[in-house]
């Protein structure tokens, strides 16, 4: 690796922080993108900063009972993050705070699928394995129609992968996967 040419990394990081504090997701993503393009060798560190800052922002939204907007942001993060401790902690706090209210009843399509997948993770993290399994089953049922549109398959498989991690019984997880594979085939 050669030394980086000067670009104002600090300014961009400040702008990233500012856009997150203003709850501007698109702008924050743009700033993150710029940082990663200019300094690609630090992509992972920038992503970490981005996730941590958004987790903090969503926590403050929850503290201020801004549940709708917090729900929207946490769903966006859920599909972006592969594994992150801070995010996992946030997810538990989120579900505890919204208290499994009717948060999902007004959700549709992909948003609903994400919610169900998140819910499965929440129950798994809490050790409530039967409920986690139920959420996965619900998510998989809804996913079958989602897969009919092939352009959505990357998003669909992401949720399948995430869901399967939240089933304690390995045999059941494999069986559920085989069922969804069969149904998608049909």
């Amino acid at each position: 690796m050669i030394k980086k040419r000067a670009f104002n990394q600090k300014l961009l990081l400040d702008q990233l922080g500012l856009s997150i504090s203003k709850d501007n997701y698109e702008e924050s993503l743009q700033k993150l993108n710029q940082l990663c393009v200019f300094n690609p060798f630090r992509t992972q560190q920038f992503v970490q900063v981005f996730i941590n800052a958004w987790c903090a922002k969503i926590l403050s939204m929850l503290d201020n009972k801004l549940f709708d907007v917090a729900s929207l942001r946490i769903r966006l993060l859920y599909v972006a993050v592969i594994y992150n401790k801070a995010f996992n902690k946030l997810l538990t706090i989120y579900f505890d705070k919204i208290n499994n209210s009717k948060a999902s009843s007004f959700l549709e399509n992909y948003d609903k699928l994400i919610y169900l997948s998140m819910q499965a993770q929440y129950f798994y993290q809490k050790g409530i394995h039967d409920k986690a399994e139920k959420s996965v089953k619900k998510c998989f049922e809804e996913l079958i129609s989602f897969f009919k549109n092939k352009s959505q398959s990357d998003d669909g498989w992401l949720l399948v992968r995430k869901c399967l991690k939240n089933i304690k019984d390995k045999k059941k997880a494999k069986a559920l996967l085989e069922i969804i594979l069969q149904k998608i085939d049909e």
Partner: protein
Amino acid sequence: MWILGISKSHNGAVALIHDGKVVCAIQAERLSRIKRQALELKDDKILISKCVNYCLKQAGIKHSDLQSIAISTPWEVNHLKDSNLFDYIGGAPKNYKGTYYVPHHYAHVEYILHYSNLSPGIVLIIDGSGSKEKDRKYCNINEETDPNCISHVDAAGKETVSAYWFDGKKLLLIYRFSPSVEIFEKYNKKSNGFLQSIGHYWRWASNYCCGLHSEAGKVMGLAAFGNHKVHQDLKILSINKAGLIKVNYEKLNKKFNSPNIFGKDLTNNTHYGNIASMVQKDTEDILINILKILKEKYSTDTLYYAGGVALNVLANEKIIRSHIFDKVILNGSVEDNGTAIGAALSASNLLTNKRTVEKVTDYYGRIYSNDDILVAINKFPFKYKFIDDKKKYDIIASLIFQNKVVGWFQGRSEFGPRALGNRSILANPANQKMKYILDLYIKQRDRYRPYAPVVLEEYAKKYFDIDGISPVMMSGGRVLSKHFPAITHVDGSARIQTLSKNDNADFYKLIESFNKLSGFPIILNTSFNLPGEPIVESPTDALNSFSNGSLEYLCLGNYLVSRN
């Protein structure tokens, strides 16, 4: 003579050779359990001591028996006092003949020459980057240069491509591309940190398509999902008639500015597929061009090929099928881990004035006995039973035939990045759903990555369009049958391991048993690890992986472990 080799690198490794033969080698990542673990020879003495002791234990010798230490690094060469160096290995040797600092590409060369019949040929080394030109004076193993050497060397440069003429005994440098690392160079100004290097072009692609700069293997898998013609006018990577290589990062960064920052599985997103395909095609083209330039000046039928870029199986296949050379010599540890072996061999050659050879292999790790395995098993709450050798192969083959996914832990661990049947996850290649099960559930891998088949060598040509053998999974070919969806990539190809009884008798017997049940001598073979982790090394690592993952069975030596 016992010589220790150290790869002080982002892919750190230690190797032990005796009288010119490799006795043991271990990548630091296998012991630290951190993927691509670096060895820096700085403050952390524990890890390097672990690696050294691992090798000494396998050899049954002590640090005092060592007679030389050889170090290769792509970073700055910092000479250590012998007394400091001995701290890393556990004490002072009795009959020490010296410490050797070996230029990075030269260590790659000695590694690959070791696996040949020493016939004259061209040795090509391509990686991200190796030794700095300014550091050559600190190396006490030096290269000789052919007066007609094609040299594109900057005083502030780092070697990124080197080629040597090997006359059967001596080596002469015949080509070097060593571009400047200075930021004021025009070609570095808009490169965003990447060097003029084919390896760094792959780093760029890996970063752009996968969110991490060390995932060139993933990019290679993704390439099959794209169309290189979409960007064929860009000409990012080029070489002129004088052999000067150029990577046009300015154009690259101008054209492509939506990196897959979060490293999502975007199998169906043609943007990334097309870029991967472009990088793959560019690489294949430039390799052929370099080789043609070299062959024109140095006529030979043999190519020795190493360096990280040599892990690109698709490009290797293009080289083999170009028939520019009749023989292409490859082995599995062509990336920096292999320079631990290469450095030790360089010192050995110098001290004994003799070059030795061995057959291509990567089984250089430790063996764990059934007793070691049982001690580990008893720490975990799993069911297990002892199965003797007479039944072992049939039982495991039957499980695989029943579409169970099995962890297979036998014999000496592999040194390089490939699991070759001693630290492997095995599955039925004919199962329609197996790739989904592995991708989504067992391995949690991106869907665009293929799984490799292992086939008994004598049947390889019946099932695959393969030119020669591929004992360390370094070449590939088309799958000739449609009955193996789990190992057939989207473009109909596979990265193949051919297996002979001499390579690995245990694994051979297992595939023979599977053949009796299934009618085909092929098993899906993927590395035994969880996502983001290095391949398992010890029985405890394997059991941890079994515990945290979703494998159904685990065969450790003669013990079959299953879930309660």
